[in-house]
C-alpha cells in the first residue's frame, strides 16, 4: 500500500504486454493481486489520473500508461490530457485550429466507439 506499488503496477504495463492484457480482461482480479488500499485500488480501477497526480504518482508513468492501455495510439495522449484537465482539453501545443478540432473529434469518436463496444460486450473498457 504505497505510491511505490501503484507505480510498480503502471511501470510493468510498459514492460510486459501480457500484464496489460491480463489487466484489461479482468481489472478487478488483476488489481486484487496487489497490496493496495481501497483508495489506491479505486484510483487504478478508474484510471483516475487527477487523483493519482494528487497522490504523488509520477506523471511520466501515467502518461505512458494511458497510451499503452489504448493500443499505443499517440493521439490518446490528448485523451489523457483531457482526463488530466477534468474533461477540458487546452490547446497548449498551439496546434492550428483545424488540426486541433480534428484531434478533439478523434478522441470523442474513439471514446464513443469504445463505449459502444463495451455495451455490446465486445470489449472491456476502463471507466
Amino acid at each position, binding site marked *: 500500500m504505497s505510491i511505490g506499488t501503484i507505480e510498480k503496477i503502471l511501470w510493468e504495463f510498459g514492460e510486459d504486454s501480457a500484464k496489460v492484457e491480463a489487466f484489461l480482461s479482468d481489472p478487478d482480479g488483476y488489481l486484487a493481486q496487489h497490496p493496495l488500499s481501497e483508495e489506491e485500488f479505486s484510483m487504478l480501477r478508474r484510471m483516475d489520473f487527477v487523483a493519482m*497526480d494528487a497522490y504523488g504518482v509520477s*506523471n511520466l508513468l501515467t502518461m505512458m500508461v494511458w497510451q499503452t492501455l489504448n493500443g499505443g495510439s499517440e493521439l490518446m495522449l490528448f485523451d489523457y490530457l483531457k482526463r488530466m484537465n477534468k474533461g477540458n482539453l487546452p490547446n497548449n501545443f498551439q496546434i492550428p485550429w483545424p488540426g486541433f478540432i480534428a484531434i478533439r473529434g478523434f478522441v470523442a469518436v474513439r471514446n464513443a466507439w469504445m463505449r459502444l463496444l463495451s455495451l455490446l460486450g465486445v470489449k472491456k473498457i476502463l471507466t
Partner: protein
Amino acid sequence: MAQIAGAFCVPHIPLIASKPVVADKAQREKVFAAFAHIRERVLELGIDTAIIIGDDHYTVFGPHCLPSMLIGVGDIDGPYEDWLGHEKAPIPSNPELAGHIMQYGFEHGFDWAVGKTLTVDHSVFVPYLKIVKETGRDIRTIPVYIAAGVMPLIRPRRCVELGAMIGEAVAAYPGDERVAIIGTGGLSHWVGAARMGEINEDFDHAILDMIKRRDIDAILRFTDEEVLNESGNGALEYRNWLVAMGAVKQYDYELLCYEPIHGWVTGTALVELKVANA
C-alpha cells in the same frame, strides 16, 4: 593527458528523433542548425569521447531500483524506446576511461551505481544521435544518468559536485582523450502533467542568464517546488546541465539557439560552454 575540451547543454526531446515535423518548421530548422554547429565544434576541438549526462524517465529503471547517479562503464546500446523510430544498435563506448571515472568517483566520495551494460533511453540517445553519431566519426560515448526526472531527485548541489569530480577524473586520466561533456534536457516543460505544452519563457531566460554568468549559487536557490509550479516537472532537468557546468570551472557562454517550441512541448536551448585553453 586527458582533458575536457568541450562542454555543451542541449535538449534531448524524443520528438527530435521520432517526429521532428510536429514542431514549427522555422523553429526546428534553427535547432537543427545549432546541432550542426555543435558537430562542427566537436570536430574542430578534436573530441574523441562524449560524456552524456541524461536522466531516466521511468524507462530504463523501475520503481524497484532508482539510482541517484549511475555511470555506464561497459557495452552500451540504444535506444530503449522502440517508438523513437530508431533501431536499437550498439553505441561505441570508452570502457577504459569510464572505468577510471567510476573508480575515481569511488575514491572521492561518489558511491554511484554502475551499469556494466546499459541500454540508454532518449535522454542519452538523442544527444548521441545529433552530436556524436551524425558526425560520422569514431567518437565514443560514456553515459551518466542522474535522478532528475523521477522522484526522489538528486540534490542540485550534488550535481555540481559530480560534475567537478568528473572533470578532475578526466584530468587525472593518463590517456590523451579529448572529452566533451554534454548536459541534456529541457528548460521549462510539463511532461504528462495537466499543463503539458505550456512553456515558461521567463524561467528559461532567467536560468540561461544564470548559466551565462556561471552563477551556480543563483541556480541552487531554486526550490524544487518553485520549479515544478512555475516551469514544470521537465524543468527539473536543469540538474543535468549543472553537471556540465560543474565540470568546467571557467567558460565563455555562447547561446546557439533558444526557441519555445510548443510542438515539442519544451523550451529548447542549445548552449556551448567554451572551455578555456581547450
